[in-house]
């Protein structure tokens, strides 16, 4: 089953075209990686999925993006509901300047002010493996955590809202090797329940975590397929050059 279907998507920043006729199918309940050199449009594509890219008034889009079968550019779509279902984790961990507990509770508090939050917070922190370490200091500031814990917290923050899709934009580029591995293992566990799309500049990471992989270049999707196949037996010469490290 596909969770994201993109057809003929063009996107411009002012006069610069960042996405060219992109058409992709992204499957539910697995990890999909978007790879490619800097400026290839992979982050831009990711940021269209919850329409955060359109905060910039210079951005213009054309084409179709359907999430769970629903066209997200149609005027009836509420950005609030869309972003609740499609959460995003950023390159630099960005915990809110409030306590650990309130960070995780924040989503519920803004969407459903009257729901009790305690159980949901415990469940989310357990799911990302933070509960045991942090249960006795839930009310200290989230910004004092180590970077890896902050990034786990940023993932945990999405879970109480029961999102359909989790988008991650180079989530490990601020982390060391060990923390990167830990986050990757976490993503592997979460993929049983959530559809995950990850943008990464590290081919090794894409290969370790993803089931399917899209290779992008200059705003176009050059090739996609099961990760193992794309890495061992690329059909397009450009993909082969990129994964062999000849450019990018």
């Amino acid at each position: 089953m596909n969770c994201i279907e993109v057809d003929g998507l063009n996107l411009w920043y002012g006069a610069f075209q960042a996405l060219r006729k992109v058409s992709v199918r992204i499957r539910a309940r697995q990890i999909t990686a978007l790879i490619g050199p800097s400026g290839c449009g992979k982050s831009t594509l990711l940021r269209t999925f919850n329409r955060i890219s359109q905060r910039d008034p210079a951005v213009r889009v054309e084409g179709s993006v359907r999430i769970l079968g629903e066209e997200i550019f149609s005027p009836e779509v509420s950005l609030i509901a869309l972003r609740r279902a499609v959460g995003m984790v950023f390159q630099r961990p960005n915990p809110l300047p409030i306590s650990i507990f309130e960070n995780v509770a924040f989503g519920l508090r803004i969407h459903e002010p009257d729901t009790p939050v305690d159980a949901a917070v415990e469940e989310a922190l357990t799911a990302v493996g933070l509960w045991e370490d942090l249960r006795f200091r839930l009310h200290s500031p989230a910004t004092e955590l180590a970077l890896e814990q902050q990034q786990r917290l940023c993932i945990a923050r999405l879970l109480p809202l029961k999102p359909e899709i989790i988008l991650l934009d180079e989530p490990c580029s601020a982390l060391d090797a060990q923390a990167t591995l830990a986050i990757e293992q976490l993503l592997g566990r979460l993929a049983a329940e959530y559809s995950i799309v990850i943008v990464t500049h590290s081919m090794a990471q894409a290969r370790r975590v993803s089931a399917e992989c899209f290779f992008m270049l200059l705003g176009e999707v050059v090739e996609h397929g099961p990760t193992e196949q794309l890495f061992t037996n690329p059909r397009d010469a450009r993909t082969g050059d990129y994964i062999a490290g000849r450019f990018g």
Partner: protein
Amino acid sequence: MKPAIARSSITPRFSETPAIARRLLEERIARRLLAGVLTASLVPLFAILIYLVWQAAPMLSWGFLVESPRDGMRSGGLWPALLGTLYLVGAALAVATPVGILASVYLNEYARPGRFSRIVNLAVINLAGVPSIVHALFGLGAFVAFAGFGRSILAASLTLAVMSLPVIIASTTEALKSVPQSFREASWNLGATRWQTTRHIVLPNALPGIFTGIILMVSRTAGETAPVLFTGAVFYKSIAGGDLFAYNLLDQCMALSVHLFTVSTQVPNVPEALPYAIAVVLVATVLGVNALSIALRVYLRSRKNW
């Protein structure tokens, strides 16, 4: 075996050459000069304060604060003026603070960056530079005459509020800009509305900076003479000494700044210490309010989480 290099055989490559000595001399001169300039600029400040208190000493007492003036302002206290200033500043603060903060929130968090917000920002900066006597005339026309409040505390404090709005808007804007954009993005990405983001994330983190603007405003408005003279302050008004609720918003009132002006220039044969004592009370009032705001700001900053 250690290499046998005698200390004396090392060439003096790190020793002080004449060129280095000259630079070190410049360095010493610069340090003394800068310290001297700082001292020179602090001396007048303390000189004024010490001189004021010295001259005022014979008049200063608790009674001076809480009594009404007597003998055609030549003795007694300044309670009506002190209370008047507190009313004027308090009412101006009550109007200008919420309006200024909310206006600035719209400008920063809602309005799209572009020609409109640039023009508004430019207007705000220029408005902050308009001389207070011009605001005074505006207040006289708009609040006293047109709105029909008459010469009153209401008209005067609204004039002060209009005068201080640009200061509050400008400083709130600075405070909002200092809140990292990543906090807003994190909040928006969870599906928070702009208002939820502003209310829960941006404003709490901008509060210390906003207080700076309010402190500036209090200092400025408490000392203003022209705007209140035009719109609501009077030469003399008798109220019960020590009564905190002696004025009503539609009354005229006395104000410390105007009182200082009249006692110094309009009343013959006042004791020499009287104007100085009024000045000391005015300065102390401003410093007192500032100290309170600074304490509040320090408290808020200590609760800040990043």
